């Protein structure tokens, strides 16, 4: 049994978000989605906003992870997330209004807005709604 699980820890600046044994972890990186199984080659990668799915022996857990980096070792995965939240911590109405605001900002095309920031805000809002919809 011990052979096909590995340690997963998700750490945010404010708390240790998750710690446990998993059979597989999926998350989004800047290069695309990846799924990590035990005995993965060592890898350090930068996380893009997305849903992180942790497959445990009998259940699976989902969390929204918005930014950070991940360090993958054969027997351990450490995700340093700047923001991470469980589905029940997300406020749907807030995510909706954030989506609207971001869309407005992107549509207005004013010169003094931070396009990149608005795009990231939009992505975050969409992910928050996504994870709740599932």
């Amino acid at each position, binding site marked *: 049994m011990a052979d096909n699980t590995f340690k997963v820890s998700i750490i945010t*600046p*404010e708390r240790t978000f998750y710690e446990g044994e998993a059979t597989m972890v999926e998350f989004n990186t800047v290069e695309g989605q990846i799924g990590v199984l035990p005995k993965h*080659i*060592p*890898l*350090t*990668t930068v996380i893009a906003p997305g849903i992180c799915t942790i497959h445990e022996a009998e259940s699976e857990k989902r969390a929204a992870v918005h930014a950070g*980096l991940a360090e993958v070792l054969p027997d351990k995965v450490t995700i*340093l997330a*700047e923001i991470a939240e469980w589905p029940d911590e997300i406020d749907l109405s807030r995510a909706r209004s954030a989506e609207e605001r971001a869309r407005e900002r992107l549509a207005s095309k004013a010169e003094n807005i931070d396009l990149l920031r608005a795009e990231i805000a939009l992505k975050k809002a969409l992910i928050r709604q996504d994870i709740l919809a599932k």
Partner: protein
Amino acid sequence: MASMRDIKRRKQSVSSTQQITKAMKLVSTVKLQKARSKAEQTTPYFNAMYNTICSMLAKAGAVNNKYLKDNGSEKIGVIVITSNRGLAGGYNSNIVKMITGSDMKPEDVKLYVIGHKGGESLTHKGYEIVKDYSPVMEAPTYADAMEICKDVLGAYASGEIGQIYLVYTHFKNTVSQIPKLMKLLPAEVAEEDVAAAKSSGAEALMNFEPNEEEALDLIVPKYVTSLVYGALVEAVASENGARMQAMDSATNNAEEIISDLSLKYNRARQGSITQELTEIIAGAEALS
């Protein structure tokens, strides 16, 4: 000798001050406990971040990254963390002394201040303040640290400032807080840590996605942000620790003054009784 009434009035005023300092001490003790547990929770994140940076530098070596090289600007950006309120002993002045005592010239320094107290005294000394984030100090969050770092890193990337320093008070324990001056960029990590990462074989196999240089570009800002956040949280703990100590010694001093005044008051009372008696006896003798 002061009259009995004067001594009594003085004693009352000191004891009401003592009540205030006592209450302030209790308040900061509670706040300290909260801030301390928060500071402890950030340590795992910071340690993991530092290890990652070390192993990246061990792998990448002296790569040509904008965050690792001097960009030629003379100006120095300094992030100063002090408190918004006083009555914390030497807490704020120690931070100010760190800056005035360093070999940075006031005209070269651009300050990003967090906390009114440090900002005020440094303006008096002729330092230029670019931006003030004082309200952050009430309850620092990671989002606040991101905001600050965005401004500072922006100035660094555009060449406005060539170096970034961070000045804050390190929280060693409840009774000891140490002001610290720390260089953030160009990034520097201890040589031995890099060497240690190099020698542990596993790191040599580490892959980076995207490649090292791009990954460094993305990770260094996160590293800086985590440092700033850690400093903010520690500074809050230190502030309350310093205030607790200051208020504790103020309460003790008030106690001392009160006992001194009580003694004086009793002496004055006894003196006046003796005097009255002498007068009565003298009067009786004169009559007889």
